């Protein structure tokens, strides 16, 4: 029988595992009568198509569907930034052109309400609607699995981005005495270590321990925000006016005192187009502009938001590292990326207001660790314990290294050789977990905030808008419904359980909606796993008007 | 004098010596491999061309056949100026000349295409010159093979299945295929074994008598020159220094170089009293040719004039020409 229609599936070629399930997905789609042309491409091919393809189909220069891994910007799920119909490209990040009034409605509530129970209800609405129409096929939620030195205690991790980073100040290496050296492996080499330039954990792995945020998480377990550089805040009833009180007596590594001017400097720089911060668009949405905040005291910031936003607390205050005004303000905007503060190569002098000078070998922060520079041939970042940290170190680590190690085999060898104590979850060691001997590696899993999905161009005439489906042609008013049938058909054709078992080594959970599986907002009652059932899938295709 | 079969007039071949600069090459000197050589060869005669290695014998032959383009001079074959024909004549004209004048190479190992059977090698000239008479080729090939003392079934063999002498026979047969009037033989026996040499020399002699061929016989083996030639020309550093009928030359050589050459040949006779003329020094290279008479640095009888003035080749007897200021 001739295929019903043809679709082009792009599979990013940077990760073998993803390529494998991409291939599998393509095959499964073929089994329900779709002609799939899959191609393995670098992300640099996908990105321009999706950001500038104007929703056109693949053959017209846009795209049909591709595979991706995603996560939200904050630990609290923020689907409102990705799926709202107002936020389609080029202005926004709704790359898939999700355009559903019910979803929009739920997202508006999630974003703006101050009523926590209303927000929870909206989350549920969002999940239900998504589950019904499946604007994208969530394949599975990978579980993060790593192996650590069995002697390492106090290790705590998550892959929540961008605030995940190792916290060696809490680590104790047993039997290493009072001056332990710890090492952590990170897969990729970071591009820049100025916090506002990156949202990836490759970078935050490195700069994370150096800086502080206004609020931070008590632990990844509880995911509870506790005061960091801020001690407290107050909000007006409409959620727009915030006054944030800052901690006093905090010193930058240079000895300069931390004040409200630093917070203002940080936000100013992010919003200053000349710096080219990647966070600018997002922050601009929350803050509206530089006029919305001011240092209302040496230790106080007052903010007036254009509209209430959950992102303000969860993202801007809770995830964004504060940069030192005195150290960075004299660096020309275009030079900041290449500055030693960003590369950690070499040293530079920072003048403090009391006339002293400090030799910095990397970024200057308020955090528990002071950069000691980067050794390019070892690919190692070195840190020294900050003796003047405003919170006591609880572990015995005094010297800390962060090394770039590429490759799963390599990282396990390093762990076995005792060269590292822990590593980030990028290594995907799940399939190799059973090769790890407890004498040198303790396998540990933790919450992941990611999911893998196949995403569709929802402007596509067949599976996006449905106008080209038999049902849609017959009855244009049911076109959207027909497209949803096709997407559900595909969803049922994907053997999620097998993917988790076979490719992710069992470390993961079959997916349903774009909501972190372990988030409290995930409704486990409602979101039952989607069955792998080719008959069911074919029935959905038939509902869309296709005949086998 | 009757019209000569082959007439070579002031033939020269100069090879440029190139030196590479950073970007371009430039010519810094010239090797005068053949310099102003003139001689004539009558039908049925054999002219032996002798001289030490590198004196330009082969180059002369190749220049006559236009295998290298001569720098200057003229070559007349049967009264016809052939170089212009080679240069821009009709193909039929070129073939006409090629038919008259053939070449036999020194090394029979190299002069046969190793990928071709002897039959194929011999068929090639027939294919080129008489494409229309294809039916006659096989008989002609048989005849050629017999003519040089081989068997017809040898046509099926490859060169590597032959001995050196047999190969040389094939080389001769190939040259004879086009029924030439003149054969240029470039050291045809010097790479052969002693016992085979005589066979080939005999063959050449018989062919000459039977077919009325003329030979230009190039060699540095004076014994064989004496056997086969009617006339001898002696070359030294690209120049002809003496030319004479064979017995005249061997009896009364005029040039000191010729005499030295003759006396240097060891005679296979233990009793032979050899009055030898010692030549001092090595053969100078064609690149650094001495001024004046090229031979003067090695010549015992050199006069001051020899150093500065180059002697002309002049007649000193019947058919005897000599270029020496102070003949012996």
């Amino acid at each position: 029988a001739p295929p019903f229609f043809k679709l082009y599936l792009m599979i990013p070629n940077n990760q073998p595992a993803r390529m494998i399930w991409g291939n599998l997905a393509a095959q499964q789609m073929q089994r329900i009568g779709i002609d799939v042309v899959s191609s393995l491409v670098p992300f640099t091919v996908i990105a321009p198509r999706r950001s500038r393809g104007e929703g056109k189909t693949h053959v017209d220069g846009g795209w049909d569907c591709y595979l991706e891994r995603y996560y939200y910007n904050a630990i609290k799920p923020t689907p409102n930034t990705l799926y709202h119909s107002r936020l389609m490209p080029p202005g926004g990040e709704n790359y898939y052109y999700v355009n559903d009034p019910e979803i929009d409605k739920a997202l508006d509530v999630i974003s703006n309400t101050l009523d926590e129970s209303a927000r929870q209800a909206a989350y549920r609405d969002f999940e239900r609607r998504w589950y019904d129409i499946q604007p994208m096929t969530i394949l599975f939620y990978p579980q993060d699995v790593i192996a650590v030195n069995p002697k390492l205690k106090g290790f705590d991790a998550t892959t929540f981005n961008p605030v995940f980073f190792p916290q060696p100040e809490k680590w104790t290496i047993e039997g290493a005495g009072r001056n332990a050296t710890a090492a952590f492996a990170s897969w990729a080499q970071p591009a820049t270590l100025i916090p506002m330039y990156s949202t990836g954990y490759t970078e935050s792995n490195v700069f994370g321990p150096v800086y502080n945020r206004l609020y931070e998480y008590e632990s990844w377990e509880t995911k509870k925000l506790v005061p960091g550089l801020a001690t407290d805040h107050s909000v007006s009833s409409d959620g727009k006016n915030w006054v944030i009180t800052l901690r006093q007596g905090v010193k930058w590594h240079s000895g300069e005192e931390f004040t409200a001017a630093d917070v203002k400097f940080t936000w100013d720089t992010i919003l200053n187009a000349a710096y080219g911060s990647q966070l600018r668009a997002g922050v601009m949405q929350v803050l509206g502009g530089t006029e919305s905040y001011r240092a209302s005291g040496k230790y106080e910031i007052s903010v007036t938001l254009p509209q209430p936003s959950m992102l303000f607390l969860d993202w801007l205050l809770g995830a964004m590292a504060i940069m030192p005004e005195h150290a960075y303000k004299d660096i020309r905007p275009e030079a900041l990326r290449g500055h030693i503060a960003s590369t950690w190569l070499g040293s530079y002098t920072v003048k403090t207001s009391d006339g002293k000078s400090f030799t910095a070998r990397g970024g200057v922060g308020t955090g528990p660790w002071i950069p000691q520079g980067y050794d390019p041939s070892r690919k190692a970042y070195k840190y020294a314990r900050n003796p003047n940290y405003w919170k006591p170190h609880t572990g015995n680590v005094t010297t800390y290294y962060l090394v770039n190690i590429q490759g799963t085999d390599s990282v396990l060898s390093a762990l076995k050789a005792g060269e590292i104590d822990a590593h980030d979850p990028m290594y995907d060691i799940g399939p190799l977990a059973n090769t790890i001997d407890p004498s040198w590696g303790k396998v540990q899993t933790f919450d992941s905030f990611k999911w893998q999905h196949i995403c569709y161009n929802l402007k596509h005439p067949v599976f996006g808008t449905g106008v080209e489906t038999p049902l849609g042609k017959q009855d244009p008013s049911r076109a959207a419904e027909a497209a949803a049938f096709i997407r559900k058909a595909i969803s049922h054709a994907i053997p999620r359980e097998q993917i988790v078992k076979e490719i992710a080594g069992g470390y993961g959970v079959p997916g349903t909606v774009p909501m972190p599986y372990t988030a409290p907002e995930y409704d486990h009652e409602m979101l039952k796993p989607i069955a792998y059932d080719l008959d069911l899938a074919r029935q959905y295709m038939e509902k869309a008007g296709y005949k086998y | 004098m009757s019209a000569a079969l082959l007439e070579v007039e002031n033939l020269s071949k100069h090879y440029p010596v190139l030196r590479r600069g950073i970007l371009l090459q430039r010519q810094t000197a010239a090797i005068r491999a053949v310099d102003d050589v003139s001689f004539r060869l009558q039908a049925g005669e054999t002219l032996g061309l002798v001289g030490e290695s590198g004196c330009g014998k082969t180059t002369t032959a190749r220049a006559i056949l236009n295998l290298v383009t001569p720098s200057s001079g003229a070559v007349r074959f049967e009264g016809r100026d052939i170089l212009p024909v080679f240069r821009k004549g009709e193909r039929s004209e070129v073939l006409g000349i090629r038919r008259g004048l053939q070449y036999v190479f020194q090394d029979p190992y190299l002069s046969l295409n190793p990928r071709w059977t002897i039959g194929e090698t011999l068929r090639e000239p027939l294919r080129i010159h008489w494409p229309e008479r294809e039916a006659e080729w096989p008989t002609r090939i048989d005849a050629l093979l017999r003519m040089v003392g081989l068997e017809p079934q040898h046509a099926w063999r490859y060169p590597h299945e032959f001995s050196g002498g047999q190969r040389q026979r094939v080389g001769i047969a190939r040259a004879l295929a086009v029924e030439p009037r003149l054969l240029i033989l470039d050291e045809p026996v010097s790479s052969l074994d002693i016992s085979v040499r005589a066979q080939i020399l005999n063959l050449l002699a018989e062919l000459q008598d039977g077919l009325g061929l003329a030979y230009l016989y190039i060699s540095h083996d004076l014994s064989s020159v004496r056997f086969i030639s009617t006339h001898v020309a002696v070359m030294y550093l690209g120049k002809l220094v003496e030319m004479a009928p064979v017995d005249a030359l061997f009896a009364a050589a005029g040039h000191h170089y010729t005499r030295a050459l003759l006396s240097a040949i060891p005679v296979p006779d233990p009793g032979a009293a050899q009055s030898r003329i010692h030549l001092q020094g090595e053969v100078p290279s064609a690149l650094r040719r001495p001024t004046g008479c090229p031979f003067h640095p090695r010549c015992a009888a050199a006069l001051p004039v020899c150093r500065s003035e180059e002697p002309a080749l002049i007649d000193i007897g019947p058919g005897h020409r000599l270029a020496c200021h102070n003949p012996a």
Partner: protein
Amino acid sequence: MGMLNYIARRLLFSLALLLGVSVILFALINAIGNPIEILLAERPGVTEEIIQSVSQYYGLDGSVTDRYFTWLGNLLRLDFGTSIIYNQPVGDMLWTFGLETLKIQIPGILLALALAVGASVLAATRQYSRIDFGVISGAMLGHSLPGFFFGIILILIFSYWLGWLPSYGAYSTRNLLWDSELADGLWHMVLPVGMLAFFNTATLTLLLRSSLVDVLRQDYITAARASGLPERRVVMGHALRNAVIPVLTYLGILFGLMLGTAPVTETVFTWPGLGALYIMAIQQLDYPLIMGETMIITVMLVGATLLTDIAYVAIDPRIRLG
């Protein structure tokens, strides 16, 4: 004189070569559009303004030819630009990574040369013997074994099963071998150098043996033996030096080959060298890095060829370069 002339000509040619390579590569990179735009498009929240400002910073806002000449001008001042991804001066990166690459490549070649000399002397002096057969067969097998696959197997055996050798990287972070940086560094070099050496020993042995067999047949070797020189001196002094001459050219090529396939070697051993850097640069389209690296590798290749040519002259008095 001839030599200087030759070197000058050679350098001129190399310059032309480098220019050619750079133009082609530059054109290719630019044919895909503004690299910054492609790069940044991958990241969420990037606006046109940001692309503008970043492009400007990396000097990517002129026409292609302008950009090329700017790049070239900077190159002449040994300024390779700044890596887009790593924000570091490309020149510095090439230097550190280049040293790491040479650190395994040069010992790899030298070790291979030493082993090949030993093996081929052993084989060639016993031509037709069982040892000879063994050496040839071994070399043939080694020559055909895909180097990277062999490397993987080495890691599996020596690092994973036996646990004797480190399998990745050039240094340990902690727990240095014998607490010595030097020992630790050498320790890490064992596997990659071993792999490179093994692979090249095989090829070199094949070449050197046949060259040596040829030389040993030469008259001057018989003459040296006939003069009563001891066999050792004949083989090592007279034959080997002559036999090395035809292999020399290959050494240059070999070095080039090793540099060229460094991406594979360094991927297998996670070695922090030019090859690994190149893969990253290519994957991330870090165009100043791609350009700089290609230039450097080509320069190294040209340099190696030049060096072998000069070595030729040093060894073989017959050769006059000019």
